[in-house]
């Protein structure tokens, strides 16, 4: 989590941006007449967008009101930001995106194997020989299990390869 004040600012920005984008997009939607309540398809998202902006503002106001100076006259310092390992998160997301892009070319089983194998190594943060071998065996086993459960048992046609038909 971020510090309280930064958290509130970010929430306010997120709400305002989402709300504004929804309002801009729905501004071009048709306004239909003669429906009893003739405001068309944009009305409901617009209500939600305004509610979103209002709640974002409320979060900000609550946060600013909370930041009163204490008895010594000093305002509370924002809580320190805990160190978080974002690199594995970014790494896993990149691996997932790459494997989905590759899925069409090499098929699910191969791209899924690569994703599993590299994820195991990424999370373990180790390239020691026995860890690599264990990860390899585990990934093969996992993909065999997925194939048996989904393709054979459930009957899902797993994405095939366009290169190796």
């Amino acid at each position, binding site marked *: 989590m971020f510090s309280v004040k930064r958290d509130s600012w970010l929430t306010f920005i997120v709400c305002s941006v*989402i709300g504004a984008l929804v309002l801009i997009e729905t501004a071009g939607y048709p306004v239909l007449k003669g429906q009893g*309540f003739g405001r068309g398809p944009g009305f409901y998202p617009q209500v939600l967008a305004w*509610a979103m902006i209002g709640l974002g503002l409320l979060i900000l106001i609550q946060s600013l009101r909370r930041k009163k100076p204490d008895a010594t006259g000093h305002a509370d310092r924002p809580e320190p930001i805990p160190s978080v*390992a974002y690199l594995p998160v970014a790494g896993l*997301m990149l691996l997932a995106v790459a494997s*989905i892009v590759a899925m*069409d070319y090499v098929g699910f089983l191969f791209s899924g194997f690569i994703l599993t194998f590299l994820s195991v190594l990424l999370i373990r943060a180790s390239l020691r020989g026995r860890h690599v071998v264990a990860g390899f065996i585990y990934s093969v086993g*996992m993909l065999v299990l997925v194939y048996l459960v989904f393709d054979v048992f459930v009957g899902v046609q*797993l994405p095939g390869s366009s290169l190796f038909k």
Partner: protein
Amino acid sequence: MDAFDLLIAGLPNITKPYSIFLILAGNVLGIIFGVVPGLTATMGMAIFLPMTFAMSDVHGMLFLIGIFVGACYAGSISAILVNIPGTPSAIATGFDGYLMAQKGEAGRAIGYSTLASALGGLFGVLVLVFAAPILASFALEFGAQEYTGIALLGISIVSYISFGSTVKGLIGGIIGLLLASIGQDVITGYPRFAFGSKDLEAGLEMIPVMVGFFGVTEVLIKIEQTTEGRSVVAKISKVLPSLSRLVRMSPMMAVSSLIGTFIGAVPAAGGAIASMAAYGIQKRFSKRSREYGTGIAEGVVAAESANNAAVGGAFVPMLSLGIPGDPQTAILIGALMLNGLAPGPMLFATRPDLISTIYLGNVVSVVVFSLIGLAGARYFAHLIRVPRHYLLPAIMIFCIIGSFAIRNTVFDIWVLLACGLIGYLLQKIGIMPAPIILGFVLGPILEDNFRRALIISDGDWTTFVTRPISLAMLLINLFVLTGPYLMALARRKITNR
């Protein structure tokens, strides 16, 4: 059809070996998801929901109920053995359970937990059997205005009770409602937020969104934890508790179960609040009040009977009103919708066999987990040690393939990843995934009824306050959202005086 007829209408479904097998399989998976800290019942249900595509609606529900009930029970095993609750509803179990384990009574603690869970679970189902049809027949009188009020109530209670800041919970709920509005407008058919994409025009599928927010988000949260501690698991010896002591505890178990069922029926309250409340009340009024928190079986029994009774309670609003009480019942509603069924009062008339199967599925699940728990707790305890570098990639793969399986389209995998990433980032600013999903599930109900109510009333907004039930719903909404602030304000004024 009276309550008893309704109860037995599903007997032919439940007595088939395949049904029992599915409950057993669901229970085992649920126990795995419950025991391993970090995995939850919601995640397990979301990941395995696509497997129900190959099943009938009855079998799919039994499988998912097995996971739900199994995970609710099994959270206590890791709470007792290593003081890490497998699920949030087992937090209170650890207060005494872990200390019992430290005294060398881990087996006994698991035994008490298993039997209290079983009795609590059965009590919850019993209340469900009698309360749900009454509420459903009452709900038959509801019109669009009342359903708008109920949907709003669902979102506001969810935001208030269970996920930290009320305002952030509401923001999460609105994000879910906006996600649900993507695709063709329910009334005019106009494509909203489609940006020329045929996939977006068709709207977002429920499963990639659910699995993304519950599965991928959790994987990303877990992966950022840089350290992995090795848990020292207490040794399990004698599991079966003393029968006479259990009988002595039965009144207290009944009270805890009643508290659990009632709290479970309140949207979003769930097992965690139920078990904490029951534990607190028992501690307050027990003759052994001072011994709570020192490792006594009563503490385990109070918490476990309440959180398992809450499962039956959570089914009450789901079945009778079609409103998800918690993320798990939201997934069950999703499963029903995938089979073309609309949960709510009409389901009692059109599919009494399914309603009955849900009742009986809960009962059989309770029996199955009791047997598994008493016989195999020591084996499931080993699951606590599964390293996350094997666990997380497996969950990721199951999330991907599960999302793909719905429509056989890669677009749904992109939706999954996008939702996972959005959920992760929003969690960083305190917006949790659960209100988003409940908003997403309630979105079509809210929009459809809100707009229909306005069309029927020719655009007259007072239609929501001129009908008594609708007005009552809105007032309750107002109270839920403003009550805590008003009470805090009043307290502050009294203190200042």
